[in-house]
């Protein structure tokens, strides 16, 4: 039974830190709260946890540091905001920097407005607002508005928003990319036109579809759009790969292209191979099955070729 209040009363920092890795998320957060109320003595042990391999522990430590509000943690939190590979940790760091309220964090938070993750960008702009930051020019205003996802306001910035929109188009979220392509199409101009053409090659079919309309609005020749679109990355499996797999390991080619029954076919095939191996004392029983599996390899090849890739 975990009693956080007892640990808090006895100032058991180590005990509370151990709870940051608890299986129950409520206990984790209550421990982070308690550590956040411990003040400066908890600061050093928490700073040491910022590079802990487990994400939950890093999140709890950042949350507690945001509660302590020690200026000593600002540099480390800035480092986390810039370098941590986990999106949630960078997001938590951006929020904690706003809570601490130290203006030293402003340049790093401004840079975080260009982060590829929408949560980090949102945390950064909210913290910048808490630090009474105002954008120095139209470009930084555009980054701020994109971070707030205030799309009508971004649209009003016209050409000043193009560069930031292109920059943020690396966001892994297709909903954001779709919105950006739509806006670029509306704003237009040579840079926006190029970006819309690039969006025709996006890995997400929804973004590509939106890019078709955006390209048209930007003035891309209608007959050029299908040519660019034809170069898009394939999202369906390789026909050749599926055929080879079915030739040598009959059934696995079907599994590879996502057919649930491929494994059943494969297991039957392996069963036959084992029977041949055991009963006829054949060293390479596969040799006898190749003429049969070759037929299915060809069939698989054409099956994949006919699969739609939108």
């Amino acid at each position, binding site marked *: 039974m975990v009693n956080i209040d007892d640990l808090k009363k006895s100032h058991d920092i180590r005990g509370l830190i151990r709870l940051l890795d608890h299986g129950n998320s409520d206990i984790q*957060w209550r421990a982070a709260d308690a550590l956040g109320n411990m003040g400066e003595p908890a600061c050093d042990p928490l700073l040491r946890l910022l590079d802990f391999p487990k994400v939950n522990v890093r999140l709890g430590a950042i949350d507690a540091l945001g509660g302590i509000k020690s200026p000593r943690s600002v540099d480390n939190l800035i480092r986390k905001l810039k370098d941590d590979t986990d*999106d*949630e940790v960078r997001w938590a760091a951006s929020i904690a920097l706003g809570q601490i309220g130290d203006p030293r964090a402003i340049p790093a938070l401004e840079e975080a407005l260009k982060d590829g993750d929408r*949560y980090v960008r949102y945390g950064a702009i*909210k913290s910048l607002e808490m630090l009474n930051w105002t954008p120095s020019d139209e470009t930084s205003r555009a980054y701020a508005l994109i971070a707030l996802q205030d799309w009508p306001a971004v649209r009003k910035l016209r050409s000043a928003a193009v560069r930031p929109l292109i920059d943020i188009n690396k966001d892994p979220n297709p909903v954001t990319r779709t919105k950006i392509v739509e806006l670029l199409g509306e704003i237009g101009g040579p840079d926006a036109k190029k970006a819309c053409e690039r969006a025709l090659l996006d890995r997400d079919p929804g973004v590509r579809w939106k890019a078709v309309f955006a390209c048209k609005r930007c003035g891309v020749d209608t007959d050029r759009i299908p040519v660019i679109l034809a170069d898009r990355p394939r999202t369906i499996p390789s026909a050749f790969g599926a055929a080879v797999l079915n030739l040598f390991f009959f059934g696995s080619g079907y599994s590879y292209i996502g057919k649930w029954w491929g494994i059943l076919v494969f297991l039957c095939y392996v069963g036959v191979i084992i029977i041949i191996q055991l009963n006829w004392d054949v060293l390479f029983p596969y040799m006898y099955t190749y003429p049969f599996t070759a037929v299915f390899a060809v069939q698989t090849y054409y099956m994949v070729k006919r699969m739609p890739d939108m």
Partner: protein
Amino acid sequence: MAQKKDIPGLIRALRYHDADIQMQAAKALGTLGPGAIDRLIRALKTKNKTVKLGIIGALSEIESPRSIQPLIGTLRDENSEVRWQAAIALGEIGDEAAIKPLCEALRDPDKYVRFGASIALTKLGWKPQDSTERAYYFAGMQEWMAVRNIGKPAIPALAGLLRDRDSTVRMKVIELLGSTGDKDAIPALMQSLGDDNREVRWNTVLAAPKCGISLPYLPRGLSKRPQNMKNPWIAGFLNFLLPGTGYAYLGKWWGTLIFSFDELATVYILKMEGDTNSYVVLLPVYLLLGFHAWYMTTKIPKDPP
């Protein structure tokens, strides 16, 4: 069959796979008048969804007050289409006894049922008594601007709509909860941070500060989202016991390939080396594969927020 008044035959026809025949059978049953009511009500106890839908349609055509109570009962059917059809039928029959259950149906987790209940209540000339009832009614009609104008009193109705399985409805609800700017919306918003849909969670993050949720609480709410985490010990154990199945557990299509290779290799080695020597060769390989699956699982990144 309609001319012969063959009610069992027409009810059987409701099971037909052809939608046109189902419709014709329901219409024919509806023309049989009050004399068919008792048999139709008895037949309503069936488990078959299409039969229930046809019978409700027929009862709606007959418009007898005797069918009100059985139809009210079907408003609690497990199938949402049956509940929807029942709501529509109660509106068509036009008996005021249906008003209370239809008001309850405005709280149904399914948008079709809520829509049917709103339409039925309109037909019955019902008027919402207070802001909360008005919120449920307009939410049922999907008139979101009207719900927005109600403001704070709409919060209980909106919070209830978060049970809807349609994520677009939940997103709309979150936006409206944010627009109230009231702290009463906080529990519903905190709950939605753990929604299973990524865009609902994101919309909640945008709406939460408007209602006074402080930013540090957002990562906490999001940490409650469903995670498709795989257990490294299960993956490791499976791969040790049946090499390849640990990889399959992790969703790798080639896991089964390795499993079958192992089967073949084991048979081959047993044949060549005998029992004891085989296990001396295979055990370290199995241990290695078990450790590899365990390690691979620990390196799988968390689902993005």
